[in-house]
Each structure stands twice: as C-alpha cells, then as structure tokens.
C-alpha cells in the first residue's frame, strides 16, 4: 500500500530550468542593449561583465566538484597568451585563435586535474596557487620573450569587429558558457559532481569514478577560463600582460572567487548576479576611490573581502543560493 502512495506522487522534473535559462538570456540581452545605448564606456564595462561571468563559471564548476582553485588565473592567462601568440607570432586568424587558443587551457586543465584528482581539500588550493608564479616566470623569461614579449607584454592587433559587435559576441559566449554549465548540472554527471563535492568516499561506493570526473571537469574549466582570458585580450584590452597569471597581484585569481561565492556559487544564475553586481563595483572602486585610499589599488580587494565575510555569515550559499534554497524548502512543505 505504501508502494502505491509512492508511485502516485508526481515527479518533479526540471521544468523551471527553461524559465531560468530564458531569464538569463533576457538579463544578458538587457545588459548588452542598455550599455550599448548608454555609450562606449558602459559597453566596455558590460564586456568585462561577460568575460568575468565566463571566468567565474569556470571557477564555480570546480568549486562545486569540491575543488577550490586558487590559481584559476593560470588558465585565464594561458588563454590570453595562446590567443596573443597565435595571432602575433603565427598570424592565425583571430576568430580561429579565439576558440582554438583556449585548447591550451584545456590541456593544462587536464594535467592539473589529473594531479588534483589525487589530492583532497585545501591541497588542491595550494597546488593550483603554486602554479601561478610558475606561469608568470615563464611569461617573463628571456628564452620565451620572442613569443611573449617578456615583462613588456604583447600588444595585439584589433579584433576585426566593431565595439558593439564585440560586446554582442561576448554576451553570446557568456550565454553559451551558462548553457554548458546548465547541461552538466541537469544530466547524470551533474548529480555525480554534486555527490563528489559532498562525500567522495560515499560517491565511490555507489559507483562514481571521482578521479575521472575531477580530471575531466578540470579540463572543461581550463577551457572556459582560458576562453575568458582570450575574450579579455581579443575583444577588450588588445594587450597581454604577465600579471594576468595572478602574480604578483592576486586579483586575477581572486575575482572569480568573490563573484561566485557572494552571488551563490552553486547556481550559475547566482554567479551571474555576483558578477553583475561586483564587477562594475570593482571597476568603479579602482577608478574612483583607489587614488585616495591608503591601500591604493588594493582597496577593492579589502572591500570585497569584508563583503564576502558579511554575506557568508548571513547567507552561506551566497545571495542567490539562500533565496533558492528557502523557496525550495517552502515549496516542499506546501506540497505536503
């Protein structure tokens, strides 16, 4: 009799996923349209939002699999350099370089992931963190300077698109990255990643090959972070600098951590909220307040650090995560 009670209950299928995807598409379209109409400076701000959304998604994909990368800038910078070197040293078509360059990030991701899959918890953070000075050292080394232009950095030819078209391309890529995360999340693999994040041993005993998945996810994350790096230099800065490796300034490694954790790293929609709120704020602090502060250019880091503490104390799953979890439990309670 209890069998029939179970079978009669309607199954919850992710119908809300389509609504969320449409909402994200609309939000990205609005940001694109409004900033474009507003002027060229807002267009550039919107472009960095798109770039850092892709970048933050790459970080949160790892974090949601239980791997906290503190050196994500390694992949970001590799993507930027791969694009730059492909275009400048080898004359590769910029479009091809934009998508093929990040393959370098994917390969690096697979290698880092293979090692990380043998490590647990904070050891992954330390390992990834330790890789960024190595990346920086390679970028400024005199042996590689014919390709990297050393500490001076690479100046790139303009991408063959107008400013408005570059923004449109960035937002399309941001939406594509969101869709990739959504696809992963709603398939078998998404459930497995969540289980690995929660309890790797228990995941193993129900048949999940966590080492394989962790390596694979690092490869995907490496590609996404590198794509963000390639987008950044191809569509926005037209310049590749060694400090994109997040060394000696940590910034490039920590922004995706702040954006994801404050917005809600368990949800790609939350990561979008975090990026949209914080990335322009970061730009504003840097351009308007830094000159007057005692910590100079690091003021944004200080403010975001405090903000992170406050948000995580009040809402451990980030802004979006707390709201989503609350709604879900309320719905479950009402359904009964």
């Amino acid at each position, binding site marked *: 009799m209890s069998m029939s009670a179970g079978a009669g209950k309607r199954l919850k299928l992710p119908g809300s996923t389509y609504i969320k995807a449409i909402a994200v598409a609309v939000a990205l379209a609005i940001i694109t349209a409004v900033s474009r109409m507003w002027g060229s400076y807002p267009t550039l701000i919107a472009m960095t939002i798109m770039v850092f959304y892709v970048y933050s998604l790459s970080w949160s994909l790892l974090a949601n699999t239980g791997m906290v990368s503190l050196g994500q800038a390694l992949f970001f910078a590799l993507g930027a350099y791969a694009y730059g070197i492909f275009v400048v040293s080898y004359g590769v078509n910029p479009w091809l370089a934009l998508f093929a360059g990040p393959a370098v990030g994917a390969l690096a991701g697979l290698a880092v992931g293979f090692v990380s899959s043998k490590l647990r918890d904070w050891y992954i953070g330390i390992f990834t963190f330790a890789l960024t000075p190595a990346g920086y050292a390679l970028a400024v080394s005199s042996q590689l300077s014919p390709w990297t232009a050393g500490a001076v950095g690479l100046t790139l030819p303009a991408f063959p698109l107008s400013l408005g078209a570059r923004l449109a391309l960035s937002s399309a890529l941001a939406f594509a990255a969101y869709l990739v995360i959504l696809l992963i999340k709603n398939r078998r693999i998404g459930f497995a990643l969540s289980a690995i994040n929660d309890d790797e041993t228990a995941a193993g005993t129900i048949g*999940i090959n966590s080492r394989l998945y962790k390596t694979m996810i690092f490869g995907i994350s490496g590609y996404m972070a590198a794509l963000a790096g390639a987008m950044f230099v191809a569509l926005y800065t037209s310049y590749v600098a060694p400090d994109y490796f997040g060394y000696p300034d940590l910034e490039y490694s920590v922004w995706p951590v702040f954006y994801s954790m404050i917005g809600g790293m368990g949800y790609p929609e939350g990561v979008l909220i975090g990026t949209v709120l914080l990335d322009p704020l970061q730009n504003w602090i840097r351009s308007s307040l830094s000159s007057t502060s005692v910590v100079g250019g690091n003021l944004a880091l200080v403010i975001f650090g405090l903000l992170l503490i406050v948000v995580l104390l009040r809402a451990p799953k980030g802004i979006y995560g707390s709201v989503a979890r609350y709604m879900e439990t309320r719905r479950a309670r009402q359904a009964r």
Partner: protein
Amino acid sequence: MSLLEVSGVTKRFGGLIALNGVDLAVGRGELVGVIGPNGAGKTTLVNVVTGVYYPESGRIIFDGHDITKTPPHRRARLGISRTYQVPRPFNNLNVLDNVALAAMYGSRRISVRGARELAMDLLGRVRLAERAQDYPESLSVVELRKLELARALAQGSKLVFLDEVSAGLVGDDLREVLSVVKDIHEGGVTMVMIEHVMKVIFNLTERIIVMMNGQKLAEGKPSEVASDARVVESYLGRRWSEI
C-alpha cells in the same frame, strides 16, 4: 559457487592488525550475519570488500571476478553496495535524488528520468516516499537508515552490506528498519548484516559469523553460535546467558 569469497584477507593499520587472515563465503540469496565487539574488524571487513581499503594479503572474489585491487566505483558497478554505520547521505541533493543518483551509477547506469521513477518506487518500498522532496538534514535517524537502504537497492546490487543498520535505534524504529531489511532480503537480495548485538539478527539470518580481534571466532546457525562455548566465554559473556 559462492557470490562472494574472501580468503585469507589481512589488513593492517600501522601496528594494528584489523583483519588477520579472514575467510568468508556468501552464497546467492543468503543473509549472513557478522557480529563481534568493538574493534573486532567488522567495519574493516566491509571496507575491504567494498574497496575503501585494499588488503595487504589475501584474495576477494566476487561473482567470478578477482576484485582484490579493484577501485570502489568499479566494485559498485559489478554489483556490491553498502550502507554506512553513520549514514552518509549527499546533503546537497534531496531524498529522491540521493536514491536516483545511485540508480544512475551503481550497476544500472540509467538516465535521470528513469532513475527518478525507480527511486520513487524504492522510497515506497522502504516507506519513505512522503519525504522524497526533503533534504537529508531534516531526516530522523530511522529515516536516514531507510534512505541508505533505498540507495543501496537503487544501485541494483547483487550483494548489499549493512553496516550496523540497527545502531542507535530502539523499539518501533528498530522493528521498522528490520522489517524493511527482511522485505528486501525476501525480494531476493543477498545481504551481509554487520551487527554489534546478536539479538538483532538472531531471527533474521540462517548463518552467523562471530569475529574477534580481526579473526573469525565461530560460524554457524544462530542457535549453534549462541551456545558455542568460545563465543559465550569471549564475547557474549554472562550478559547473553542471562537474556
């Protein structure tokens, strides 16, 4: 041929010998009880068979495969599942998806939709259907145990290890969980029940293995084991004879 054959398995932790040349055979359709005091090596036995630890020596044959050095996920795929003494649910997934996940992996490896349908059926079988949409953190101890049972079943396993499924339960809760276990076994699932107290499995099993200091002390029908002088003396002691 037996479904599971463990022969001469030894597992050390530093200077401690947790398992010392243990032999164990489980036939298809059997429900075997393993009892012993704390530190007897019961949970280590489960961990060695499910692949959490690899033994230093000995062999483990499951369903014709030598799995002595096989990683846990591949053993699960071959058809071994377990519950944990302290329940280990996936707290980021609701009850339904906890069970569905096991059906997506394990030996079934079915799609999300199919897995959720099967999970709903299994939650009905362990009488937990009404909690399907809740998160594990809101479950009681007895509900968590049922969740673990449903998860082990969802894997489509040939052999299920229950690691102290009765721990911390008394009265109606204990009877409820044991009756679910009985239903599952009568549905044709081979089981090994690890227990601390013989009373719990006395009426459920046809065969009990008594462990002590990492070794097999005795083996036989519950009544034989209970009256075995060595067992009574070294493990059950005076308290058992009083019951």
